């Protein structure tokens, strides 16, 4: 997948959580994401049964989600995705919390929050997204 030619571009401004620049395809969750009990870090797949993305792999994607929920194992499970080679390449976080802030830090991927529009509404799965520190460029598919 690459950026679609002539794609409509939207820019969001936010706050840097983890500094860095990355671009790739977005995977958007409208529901909060659980770490422990919610993802399988060995495969990089969401496993929560009632979740809209159950069975979907986030490896190599820019993961866009409203917030983290559930167990304090959140950051440890996302750290394990890094150590297992199944991590997302970036995170766009609607509302930061201790879980997601630490999770982004130990996943060591560019991450951003406090955006000037709801990223889970503006960005759709499959859009091409470029995170440049506090800036998010969205190329609609």
């Amino acid at each position, binding site marked *: 997948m690459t950026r679609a030619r002539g794609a409509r571009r939207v820019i969001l401004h936010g706050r840097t959580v*983890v500094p860095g620049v990355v671009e790739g395809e977005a995977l958007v969750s409208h529901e909060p994401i659980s770490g422990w*009990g919610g993802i399988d870090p060995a495969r990089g797949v969401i496993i929560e049964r009632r979740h809209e993305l159950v069975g979907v792999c986030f490896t190599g994607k820019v993961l866009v989600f409203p917030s983290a929920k559930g*167990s*304090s194992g959140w950051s440890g499970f996302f*750290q394990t995705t890094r150590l297992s080679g199944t991590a997302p390449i970036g995170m766009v976080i609607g509302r930061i919390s201790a879980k997601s*802030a*630490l999770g982004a830090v130990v996943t060591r991927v560019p991450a951003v929050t406090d955006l000037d529009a709801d990223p889970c509404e503006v960005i759709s799965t499959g859009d091409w997204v470029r995170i440049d520190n506090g800036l998010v460029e969205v190329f609609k598919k």
Partner: protein
Amino acid sequence: MFLTDDEKRMRDGAEGAAVAAAMDLLIRYGQALDADRLCDVRNVAGTMTQPSPVKARLVSEGGWDKAFAVINLDSDEDLEIPAMRVPTCQLQHGFGADALGVVPYPKQNIELQASAESFYGRHGVNILATCTPYQVGNLPMRGEHCVWMESSAVIYANSVLGARTNCEGTASSGAASLTGKIPCWGNHRDENRYGTHHIEVSVRVDNFQDWGMLGYFAGGVAGEDHPVITGDFGRPDLTDLKHFGAAAATSGGVELYHIPGITPEAATLSAAFNGARPPTAVGYGPAERRAVYDTLNEIGSSTDVDFVLLGCPHASVDQIRRAAAALDGKRLSAGTELWLMAPRALKDVADRSGYTEVIERAGGHVLADSCPAMSRAAPKGTRVFATDSAKQVHYLPAILGIEAWFGTLEECVDAAVTGRWHGELR
């Protein structure tokens, strides 16, 4: 982020490379949170000893120093780990040697954990080995700044005890254990501890199951915010609020709630909202209660139960006693197993009080240290399980790929004895 002189010294290596790595993680974490400073802590509840494939690989490469550096400090450097700087305990982890023969669990995990206990014990980690440290000797004071993991313990510490902790993770708790510091953010600050949602209860809530269902509802309503619960309900005890909080932290991300007149930071509804007018109340009546019950039971279809799990979060002595009373003189169905999870220190109390013997005579087991969800372990061939825990019924089906029923302790014991699920909402 502002750093004091002693924090700068730690960052710059005056107390060794491991402490410097810990401070580096705390600074990166504080910046991720947009915190303006760190605060002093002397109560850490984290996880170091829990076996995992990644940890086994790290230990084989560089021992427990390497595992702590990578997992608990997020550092790639070769570090020698010093003794914990502040009181630190290990939360629940894997099963121990005493579970062999009962729990299908890899022997190499038991051995890995035993070596971890030895290493971390020497470094000053108290091996409490429970998700409920507040039941067995780590009972923080009101207002005490803590660094706790385990969402069900975090919500209990904040709400029931009035201590102050965010829902921390493996790396932040590891870094705090070597520095006595954590970002002064979120629940550590007065202005972030007031209610945000008001839930008005208009249906019976007077037992363990009721409190779990209400907690699951509150988590759905409040998400990561702070529900305030009012209504004409009975006075909850430790066990009820242990279940309520675990459920609210499972369906949402609740880390702090208030029950005016019961929890310590909100004498009145008005105090819970810092004198501001409470938001419009969300009702919890018979229809909402029924909806929560149906949600928690939607993954069950077969009524042939082959596994019953009690003690999530780890059982109180009172829960063990009640389970023993319900099982006294009974015999489990040939195809069904029953496990009750408890803190090891309370299992000792149950052993001395004769409760364990009653449960074992019926064919059940009292187990310590872990749980099926933490250790991904259930009796061999389990397809359908039953539990009295809203948290375990939420997580275990996803983790083990099994069906689940949620009911009362008595309904779970009945399922263990008859091999069939007969539960219903009463």
